[in-house]
């Protein structure tokens, strides 16, 4: 779908992208990741010619993009940026249907498309279409940013750290939504991030970049199993790499439990539980510090008296510290007949959740991997 052939980009004498070869397949979610200055954003922006390569070729569907009209090319490629960049002088509707307007779609088709898109992310069109961006929260704004990129039904979408400026909870929600969208829409997505968790969660394949080169390009699974070198190992974080069996709680925990902020409403919490199919939510502050848990029984019983989750949270719960042996967590679980055990770091920030199922899964993949190896 998108082919890089020996692509190099120089600014003056400085080579920021060095001889890159990469093939992004049709319908693939490709994540470019690396430390700042590694050339990942430059690589991305060469695809819609916001940056033009110094040498080499980039082909989309076997056509050299340098032979295409850049304006026309960009209208066929969705683009989402970190600063969101919604036009404050336009309504949500005008922002979303911008590319269709540039492409001169007729009015009815555009209006229908806007409704369809807003409904896709559960935003009521009657409520939101005529609002302005500054009337929306950051998370809602970036939802619109993503919809705007989808509007003209491009087959390729470029995303430049789209969730980088959002708070952790909103970021996870948007990642989940993007993943769901991608399961439905099967776009070819090139996504830049510096957050390894985000990459592992979203990517079909990850290209790890350093100093303008691709150091390793593979599936998340293979990158975790066989990091190409010390840099990759360092970058993905040693604790994620498999080896020697599940030793610490981190290797047996679920890393994205269902969470909620203490200020959220009781009804919202119940809706989230229903949506995610869980009976307990972990209550965390914006900085991910664990406050406690809230259960469906308690929410349901007090839904008239209490308005926010904060009033119903149980703070006195057993937790396990990061780095503890997995065995210890398992023992605590079975001895106290617990269903779950939150994992926290030294600052009480939530890292994940150990459940019996998560331990069994970790053990199973460990055992079966040993057998096939």
């Amino acid at each position, binding site marked *: 779908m998108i082919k890089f052939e020996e692509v190099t980009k120089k600014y003056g004498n400085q080579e920021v992208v060095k001889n890159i070869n990469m093939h992004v397949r049709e319908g693939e979610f490709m994540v470019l990741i690396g430390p700042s200055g590694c050339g990942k954003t430059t690589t991305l922006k060469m695809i819609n010619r916001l940056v033009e390569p110094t040498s080499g070729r980039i082909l989309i569907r076997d056509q050299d993009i340098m032979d295409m009209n850049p304006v026309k090319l960009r209208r066929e490629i969705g683009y989402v940026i970190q600063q969101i960049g919604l036009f404050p002088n336009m309504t949500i509707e005008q922002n979303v249907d911008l590319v269709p307007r540039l492409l001169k779609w007729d009015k009815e088709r555009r209006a229908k498309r806007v409704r369809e898109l807003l409904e896709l992310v559960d935003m009521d069109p009657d409520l939101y279409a005529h609002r302005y961006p500054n009337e929306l929260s950051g998370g809602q704004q970036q939802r619109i940013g993503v919809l*705007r990129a989808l509007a003209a039904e491009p087959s390729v979408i470029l995303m430049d750290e789209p969730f980088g400026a959002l708070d952790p909870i909103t970021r996870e929600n948007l990642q989940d939504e993007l993943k769901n969208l991608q399961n439905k829409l099967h776009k070819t997505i090139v996504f830049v991030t510096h957050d390894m968790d985000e990459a592992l969660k979203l990517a079909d394949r990850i290209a790890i970049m350093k100093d303008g080169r691709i150091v390793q390009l593979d599936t998340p699974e293979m990158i975790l199993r066989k990091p190409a070198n010390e840099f990759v190992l360092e970058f993905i974080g040693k604790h994620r790499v498999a080896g020697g069996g599940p030793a610490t709680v981190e290797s047996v925990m679920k890393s994205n439990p269902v969470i909620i902020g203490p200020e959220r409403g009781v009804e919202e919490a119940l809706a989230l539980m229903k949506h995610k199919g869980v009976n307990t939510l972990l209550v965390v502050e914006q900085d991910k510090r664990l406050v406690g848990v809230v259960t469906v029984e308690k929410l349901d019983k007090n839904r008239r008296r209490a308005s926010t989750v904060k009033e119903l949270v149980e703070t006195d719960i057993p937790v396990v510290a990061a780095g503890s042996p997995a065995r210890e967590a398992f023992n605590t679980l079975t001895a106290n007949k617990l269903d779950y055990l939150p994992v926290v770091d030294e600052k009480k920030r939530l890292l994940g959740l150990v459940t019996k199922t998560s331990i069994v899964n970790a053990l199973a993949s460990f055992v079966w991997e040993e057998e096939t190896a």
Partner: protein
Amino acid sequence: MNPLLELLTRSWADILVATWQHVYLSLGSVALGALVAVPLGIWLSSRQNIARVVLSIAGTIQTIPSLAFFGFTLPVLGIGVLPAMVVLFLYSLLPILRNTYTGIREVPGELIEAGRGMGMNDRQLLFMVKLPMALPVIMAGLRISSVYIISWATIAALIGAGGLGDLIWGGMNVYDIWLILAGTIPAALLALLAGFTLGRLEKAVTPRGLRST
């Protein structure tokens, strides 16, 4: 009888004619100024080096004392409405030019990037993003320009352009304070009115999504 009332009854027609002359002299100059300065400011916004030169030239024009400026044009353009308009036009340029230039330069970079990345051409980027975002600032330039051109137009009477300046200078020659006031008060009222109207217009053109309230 009150001397002001007496003056008004005797020469209300002169005052009205002078006010009308004043209005078209100043608004005409500002309108011409805007016609030149807005497109020029837009053109300069993507040419920083030339912009620096042009803005400093416009800034220098601004520093020439107006009395002297009218004097300079005398040998070239003679007297009358035309030379007055030329001078006032030159004075009106800077605020409009500077505000257009800065207004467009200050459009947030991410909006330009988003617009370009989504496939707007230069014209669409200008009319759909840059101008609507910069319009309040451009209007402010127009307002500042109008207010002080109205007040400076009084000096234009010296080179025979007419307007409310005629009454002021006439009053000064014959030591008639009431005649001076008959020119000054309408001129001040005109400036206030222009400031108020254009101020309202400035608010009206601010995109709803950019208003703080």
